[in-house]
């Protein structure tokens, strides 16, 4: 089980959260000039790193807010918690 520090509520059990997958995915555009390959990448292709992963989480059974988490997929260490619109943090 992960212990995730919600930016609003503080440290909470993983069961209160929903993971929304990889974050910082920029929508391509405009549609008229976007190729099928670009759309496919945007919709379906995700990183699957062994190590640092930047991902969105929702405090579903808490404050109801989305935020970003930098997590190590190997050790499960949460290296940073930051706002949904913040730039990527300085972690490795």
């Amino acid at each position: 089980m992960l212990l995730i520090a919600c930016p609003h509520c503080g440290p909470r059990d993983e069961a209160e959260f929903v993971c929304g997958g990889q974050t910082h995915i920029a929508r391509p555009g405009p549609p008229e000039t976007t190729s099928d390959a670009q759309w496919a990448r945007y919709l379906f292709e995700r990183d699957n790193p062994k190590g640092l992963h930047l991902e969105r989480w929702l405090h579903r059974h808490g404050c109801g807010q989305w935020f970003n988490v930098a997590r190590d997929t190997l050790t499960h260490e949460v290296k940073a918690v930051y706002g949904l619109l913040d730039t990527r943090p300085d972690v490795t």
Partner: protein
Amino acid sequence: MADALEGRAPIVWPDRLRVAALPPQARFVFRGDAEAAARAGDAFGATLPMTPCRAAADDARAALWLGPDEWLLLAPPGTEDGTARDIAAALADLPHALACVSDRHAALTVSGPRAETLLAAGCALDLDPRAFPQGMCTRSLLAKAEIVLWRHQPASFRLEVRRSFAAYVWDFLAEAAREHASA
């Protein structure tokens, strides 16, 4: 609407624990920004706390922080129309949402010196008074049910439960109480 826990006799473990259903209650969910919340508090009669996971209450009314733009308001039964009118009038020019949810929840109290122990059977929160003091409230999980948990008195918690989960939560607490009593 009939209360979801109507007719349930309190679960009592003398001097240690008491689980009791609460009577019907007027409930609202208010959503809006800080300015809207401040004005809603004036109209409602209890401050909407801006501090995360805190409740403000007097004998009749309470406002519980649920999220940065979301509060649960509790008022005496039958006051729905007046409360909705007062808040709508005070916020006519501000974006906000006010939803009456009186019949959405059932409520119960878990009190006594073993209240934390009982809740810990299904809730991962640190309920020590230093971590979860009087006046603290939050949405969380009890076993598989979402709850709003509020330490409304030093040794008493109030639980707000979706009415369709009320029987499940009650039976879960009864089972946990039996286990602790026999240990």
